[in-house]
């Protein structure tokens, strides 16, 4: 059983917003001994796409694969550093261009075959295959080759030393003997995606499309069998229906509670509510080539004039927090001493006045050289929170004499406008990870063809990004990225709005649950049910 207190500290530091301490972050009571048995039923909103990591793009399927079915080579530890999972130990070559990884012994696939270095090599080679279109292919190109030293040892060769060498290897390993006969172009239809054979704590039993996926304890798991006999994922696509099923005891866990329901469920003695940060953030990107937003002072004025906390309170029911940097706040690289710009419309007006913006004709709207301060603020259709946020932002900016015209565009149209830099300002959100790759977002070389849509260009930031990405360790990179965040905070190519906080509802029937920002199925192998009782339904 993983210990209880260290996580509580982490959670308290991070989840100030949810009033941590009211709910415990682990459901273990001291002195209770976990027992084996029982079925845990988890409600999810949508069906899975595939249990083959090579083709799956579905977040819940990926979570199940990582924590139940397969063993990743490496994983994140509690303090967000890299720790081994399938890897027992590893060492860098003196020039840091190779990492030799020793695998754990006695790890077996669910069909009894041993997991070996051959499987590791196969998995990485397949992910690197340009014909496949695996999302991380570009990052994995840093790995030039994978060499099988012996059955239990594999060596990764890198193009250059980089900060993300080990995080790149954080991939779950697939069984070569079940995939090698599948041509890479036909990977979509590989049987493994429908009937996965892994090496993790749970084995696949059955998957009925749009209904349920069932997994059972793997008695031969290398760390010992998990406590639960079975884990059943039931697909319930309606928000109200899933919460009703949860309240009536038909399901034990709701993957994600509605933000509006979280506060009430926290008060309900039958449930534990676990809150964790969204891995990502919502922001406004300013077109730094646009005459209005060329100057950092004008962009900063926009940030100061937007009451971000009001948006979190009104649209996310307080389940989120205002952050300062384009890095997720629990990343080890997040510069904690940089606080978000305050909501200060007076200061915003002063900054704009300094730029020559005045209300010369008394119509309540700032102007300069006969031109009004007005622009289009665009977001994508289909995200109600974003559409509502635009209206609140319009309202805030109007108070300082700036006219923002909210526009909602269908996704492809939105995307082509944003990619083509045909916008004044746009609102969207990024998913992000603990590791940092600011290159694609803020490097001058990423303006064409990558994700630097604001056309932000600052030679000092470019240099810091290059230097930070080449660092060997997180510790070495931290001060470099800290300086980068300080500059971005002043330059404000993005106005960072907020991070959401998501909540998982868990019945008190389930014990031993730990959930944090890494995953909501983090320690499902340690979950247990007193008396192994079956659900009431």
């Amino acid at each position: 059983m993983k210990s209880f207190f260290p996580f509580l500290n982490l959670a308290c530091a991070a989840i100030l917003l949810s009033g941590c301490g009211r709910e415990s972050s682990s459901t273990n009571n001291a002195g209770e001994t976990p027992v084996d048995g029982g079925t845990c039923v988890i409600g999810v909103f949508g069906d899975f796409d595939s249990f083959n990591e090579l083709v799956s793009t579905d977040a819940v399927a990926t979570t199940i694969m990582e924590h139940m079915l397969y063993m990743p080579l490496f994983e994140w530890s509690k303090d967000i550093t890299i720790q081994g999972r399938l890897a027992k130990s590893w060492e860098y070559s003196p020039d840091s261009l190779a990492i030799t990884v020793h695998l754990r012994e006695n790890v077996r696939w669910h069909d009894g075959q041993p997991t070996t270095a051959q499987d590791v090599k196969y998995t990485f080679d397949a992910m690197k295959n340009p014909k496949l279109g695996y999302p991380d292919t570009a990052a994995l190109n840093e790995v030039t080759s994978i060499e099988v030293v012996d059955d239990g040892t594999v060596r990764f060769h890198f193009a250059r030393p980089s900060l993300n060498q080990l995080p790149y290897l954080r991939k779950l390993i697939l069984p070569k003997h079940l995939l090698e006969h599948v041509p890479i172009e036909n990977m979509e239809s590989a049987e493994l995606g429908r009937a996965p054979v892994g090496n993790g704590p749970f084995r696949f039993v059955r998957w009925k499309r749009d209904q349920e996926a069932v997994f059972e304890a793997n008695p031969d798991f290398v760390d010992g069998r998990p406590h639960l006999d079975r884990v059943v994922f039931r697909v319930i696509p309606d928000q109200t229906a899933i919460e009703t099923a949860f309240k009536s005891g038909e399901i034990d866990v709701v993957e994600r509670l509605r933000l509006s329901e979280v506060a009430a469920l926290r008060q309900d003695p039958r449930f534990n509510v676990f809150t964790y940060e969204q891995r990502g953030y919502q922001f406004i990107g300013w077109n730094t080539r646009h005459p209005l937003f060329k100057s950092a002072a004008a962009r900063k004025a926009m940030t100061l004039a937007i009451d971000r906390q009001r948006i979190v309170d009104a649209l996310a029911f307080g389940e989120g927090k205002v952050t300062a940097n384009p890095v997720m706040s629990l990343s080890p690289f997040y510069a904690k001493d940089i606080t978000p710009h305050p909501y200060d419309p007076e200061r915003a007006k002063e900054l704009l006045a300094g730029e020559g913006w005045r209300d010369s004709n008394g119509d309540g709207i700032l102007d300069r050289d006969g031109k009004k301060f007005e622009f289009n603020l665009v977001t994508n259709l289909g995200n109600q929170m974003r559409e509502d946020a635009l209206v609140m932002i319009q309202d805030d900016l109007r108070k300082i004499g700036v006219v923002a015209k909210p526009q909602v565009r269908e996704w492809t149209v939105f995307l082509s406008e944003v990619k083509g830099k045909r916008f004044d300002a746009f609102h969207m959100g990024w998913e992000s990870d603990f590791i940092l790759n600011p290159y694609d977002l803020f490097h001058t070389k990423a303006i064409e063809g990558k994700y630097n849509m604001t056309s932000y260009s600052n030679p000092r930031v470019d240099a810091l990004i290059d230097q930070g990405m080449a660092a060997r360790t997180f510790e070495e990179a931290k001060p470099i990225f800290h300086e980068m965040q300080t500059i971005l905070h002043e330059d404000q190519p993005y106005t960072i709005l907020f991070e959401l906080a998501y909540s998982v509802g868990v019945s008190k029937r389930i014990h031993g649950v730990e959930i944090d920002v890494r995953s909501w199925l983090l320690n499902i192998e340690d979950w247990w049910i007193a008396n192994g009782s079956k659900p009431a339904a």
Partner: protein
Amino acid sequence: MIGYIVRRILLSIPLLWALATVTFFIVRLAPGDPLAMYYNPEIDPSVMETVRTRLGLDQPIHVQYVRWLGALAQGELGVSFKHHRPVAEILAETLPNTLLLTGLALLFDLGLGVVLGVIAAVRQYSWTDHATSIVALFLYSMPGFWLGLMMIILFALKLGWLPASQMESVDAEFMGTFPRLWDRALHLVMPVFVLGIASAASVARYMRGSLLEVIRQDYIRTARAKGLSERRVILRHALPNALIPIITLLGLYLPYLISGAIVTETIFAWPGMGRLTIDAIFSRDYPVVMAANLLAGVMVVAGNLLADVLYAVVDPRIRYE
């Protein structure tokens, strides 16, 4: 008759082709991108292009159309973008679920609708007639999602009599045959009721109107004059003729048997065609959208044909050459 049916079937082929073609272009030209989730700074932009090529979406739309039509002519429905499985396989899994739900709902709504309609017609302007009409209109106007949620809250959450969602309980496979059938039946009660009740209300109104018309016919007066019991007059003489308009309704309901019931399926987490289609539309899963659409088209054609043929069977005055 046989010649007529064959002619109708042959005529439906160009109709279905036109339907498929129009749908193909509308679906492709509609805004949206099946690869939207690849727009993410964690993923290199080149990956999106690789996947686009692999799915054949980089080709000009007319090339995609010819490829798709060629495959269709050979009975190939393609592979779902989202589920990474052949569409035919997905349909084979989903159709029986939908048929179970919509078939029972159809029986329920026809049965209940006809009975209520007959009662209302026989006792025209009575207290029963007014009550039936009001209840029918009330149920007909009730949005299915609301009725469904209210029933879930009442019967699943408050009373605990019925399961809230899905087709079976967890661990149903460990039950014996009869407990398992019973479990399945309990899961069917609410969705079938919600799905059937609104149509039952409308069938009742049709039935009432149609029967009232028939009752005023001369042959009914004759039957009464012969001294037959009222029961016999209504059930043997009036009802069969009054049912003819209901056959038209049946023809109209057939496609909906297959296309599923999106609202009911979503609320009760029933894994049927409606949900499959809507999910596919939202995720721009073109192969599934096209297959579901084509299937619905086939059912519309088949439903109309069946209704026409049934007319001839029940009404000897109708002859097709």
